[in-house]
């Protein structure tokens, strides 16, 4: 343990960059937390509209995407582990799998958006609902697009980061001795996964029974 780490009262495995990334992740929690708050308030005001609008989301595609993103989190954690243990080739393959799963997630999400647009679920423009609850249903889909959109942007950024990691591991820039960048990418990727863990029940499962 270095003297400075000792002075800061932490164990040697908390590197400065890891601590920095965790602070960034905590600020991300604030960002998505604000969206969650907006969602909660709107849902309290329009419970019935949220139940009916949520039933229009594609629960099958949403659930498949859960499976895809959870699996990508596993392959990412395994990729970081492999590199830590010096298994460069295994790490490269696992990173590739993670990248492909991330892309699959976005492809399914895009297909879903395409369906939503076809069903006139986009709250701006011609909207599918016209009943007395239409204002609340509009708000649900506004939250749906903003939240899944913000998440998709994070996924896209994650794919960019993963691409850099892939090239880095392939070229031998990131190795067992220099695996930190991949570790940090894995942390970011897992947080984006966590966001989806919470978006899934509040957008897809509001009223299914």
């Amino acid at each position, binding site marked *: 343990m270095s003297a400075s780490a000792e002075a800061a009262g932490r164990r040697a495995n908390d590197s400065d960059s890891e601590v920095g990334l965790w602070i960034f992740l905590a600020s991300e*929690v604030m960002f998505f937390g604000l969206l969650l*708050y907006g969602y909660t308030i709107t849902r309290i005001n329009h419970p019935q509209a949220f139940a009916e609008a949520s039933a229009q989301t594609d629960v099958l595609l949403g659930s498949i995407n859960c*499976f895809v993103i959870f699996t990508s*989190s596993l392959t990412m*954690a395994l990729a970081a*582990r492999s590199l830590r243990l010096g298994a460069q080739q295994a790490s490269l393959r696992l990173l590739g799998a993670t990248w492909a799963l991330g892309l699959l997630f976005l492809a399914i999400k895009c297909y879903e958006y395409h369906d939503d647009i076809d069903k006139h679920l986009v709250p701006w423009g011609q909207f599918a609902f016209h009943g007395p609850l239409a204002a609340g249903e509009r708000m649900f889909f506004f939250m749906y697009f903003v939240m899944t959109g913000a998440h998709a942007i994070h996924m896209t950024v994650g794919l960019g980061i993963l691409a850099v990691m892939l090239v880095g591991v392939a070229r031998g820039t990131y190795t067992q001795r220099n695996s930190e960048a991949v570790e940090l990418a894995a942390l970011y990727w897992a947080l984006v996964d*966590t966001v989806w*863990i919470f978006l899934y029940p509040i957008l897809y499962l509001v009223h299914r029974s």
Partner: protein
Amino acid sequence: MTSVMRLIGVWLAVIALLGLSLGTAYIPMGRFNSIVCVTIGFAQALLVWTFFMRLRWSGLLIRLIAVIGLLWILLLLGLSLTDYLTRHTIAS
């Protein structure tokens, strides 16, 4: 148990919880449906944070940042909701 087996075990648990969440959503329980689903979400997130994000092996500083991040957002949401949900009561 090797670390690979452990990570795969965590993944299986998260997937099983997804099935549970989806399954219970189809059982009519009124407002408890959402409470159950979000609670399951917290369980899944806890698994991801502990094992995939390696909080189990992190030092004190990182654990503190994670706990404080979570605590602050719950505090902010909780206090904001306390205000919002009681406005009507006080006004009347």
